[in-house]
């Protein structure tokens, strides 16, 4: 079977060059200065202190986290009942609903966002943040519904019958059986919504207009307009760390809930 493992060698080489090396590049750029074309190894934390000491950047970071959090919470609030209702449909209707929900996921996100731009032209007095929020909830909702539905559909239906037999009412059965068992679906839904929402820079640009800046737009500016790649790398590193930390926190909360 050793000969089979050799089949992996080309891909190991590929990920070393195209996945691992780029990550090292970002780290090196973030920890150095004045090194757009030639890497000068003079390590400094200046990029990070500059980011954290500037109130403008802090406000952008805060706005990004706020809108991503709102988007995630709303996707759960709208998506959970939907997933639950779908799981109660007949087998055939479930397949149909899942297909109907997945279809728009295959359509280019830029084109869907552009369509929202047209719709929102009818509501010109809406605030930028509300427009961006609508665009984000729209874009990520199907992912949340599908994830939660998958975990509910996997559940053993006999558990519900058992709960009813033991005297629990509908509401109690939901709280004590269905909800805890669907937590993994909510968690993977959060991963699929919060993560791209924090880093999004297309939706704010197309729907929010020029005055609405999120952390993704900031990174774009420093790479494309300003050309300060060291600072841009530092911001994206901060963003990546925040995302990793929040994912870790979500998973930890899940584990704590299970222990209770």
């Amino acid at each position, binding site marked *: 079977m050793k000969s089979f493992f050799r089949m992996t060698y080309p891909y190991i080489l590929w990920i070393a060059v*195209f996945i691992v090396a780029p990550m090292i590049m970002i780290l090196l750029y973030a920890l150095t200065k004045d090194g757009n074309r030639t890497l000068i190894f003079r390590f400094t934390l200046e990029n990070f202190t500059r980011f954290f000491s500037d109130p403008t950047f802090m406000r952008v970071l805060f706005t990004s986290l706020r809108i991503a959090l709102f988007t995630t919470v709303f996707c759960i609030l709208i998506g959970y009942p*939907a997933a639950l209702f779908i799981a109660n449909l007949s087998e055939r209707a479930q397949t149909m609903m899942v297909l109907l929900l997945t279809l728009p996921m295959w359509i280019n996100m830029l084109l869907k966002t552009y369509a929202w731009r047209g719709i929102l032209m009818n509501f010109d007095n809406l605030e930028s943040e509300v427009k961006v929020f609508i665009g984000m909830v*729209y874009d990520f909702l199907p992912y949340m519904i599908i994830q939660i539905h998958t975990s509910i559909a996997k559940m053993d239906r006999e558990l519900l019958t058992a709960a009813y037999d033991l005297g629990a009412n509908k509401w109690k059965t939901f709280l004590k059986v269905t909800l805890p068992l669907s937590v993994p679906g909510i968690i993977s839904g959060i991963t699929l919504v919060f993560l791209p929402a924090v880093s999004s820079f297309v939706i704010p640009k197309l729907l929010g207009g020029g005055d609405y800046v999120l952390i993704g737009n900031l990174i774009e500016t420093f790479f494309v307009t300003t050309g300060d790649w060291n600072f841009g790398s530092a911001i994206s590193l901060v963003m990546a760390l925040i995302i990793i930390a929040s994912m870790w926190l979500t998973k930890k909360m899940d584990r704590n809930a299970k222990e209770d």
Partner: protein
Amino acid sequence: MEKKKRSPWSFMSNGYLLLVLLFIYLPIAYVVVFSFNEGKSMTKFSGFSLRWYENMFSDRTMLDSIKYTVLVAVIATLISTVMGTIAAIGLSKARPLVRSAILETNNLPVMNPDIVTAIGMMLLFIVAGVRLSLTTLILSHITFCTPYVILTIMPKLRQLDDNVAEAALDLGANPWQALVKVILPQIYPAILSGALIAFSMSFDDFVISFFTAGVGINNISMYVYSMKRYNPSVNALSTLIVIVVTLILILVNVIPYIKDKKTLKEETRR
């Protein structure tokens, strides 16, 4: 009694699902309707016309962006499917520690925000002295598509019975024959869905393309992003894409169904 209690509940839940579907299909319906609008407005429908479709087919930059999108998606899908399939089969025979180390690295582009993957690739190309071009665009697409291919095929490979491949080897097949005649036929549905996911990831990508494509190379997403003014031809393009995606999804979902029916018929005939 039971039925009476259930009907208002199911009426409510069906109504809710209908609302969700309406929300999800609202922008799609909106662009389809306005792609036939006579005027340029995106808020007032002034009459039926096909002028935005004509406009689209005479717009060189838009046609070029479609061409690049399809070209990159086809090449990236082919290479990432082949490379991903080979790697996944190899990985399924690797020691657990090695396998999980490679899979964790493989997961990075999936877990990382696109913009991080994008600037990482861009920095790599620039530091290596490679000019951004169509080639760098394709290389980055292969890089973020292959992990999805592997993630789709791995679970299927785990379900396989190792003994079947072993038996083939014992019966005198060489590893290549065991691969082509035994393993591949068992996992080809997973390979196909991996390829489909890779194609759609590549087709829809904006962020990574934006940072790794050379000057003058725009895919559809980049074209839409760079547009300064509202251009109703985009509605025509969106409508065509909606039609194509719907057809492909119907085909993908119906073909296995027809096939199942056919094998079922053949089996009952026997």
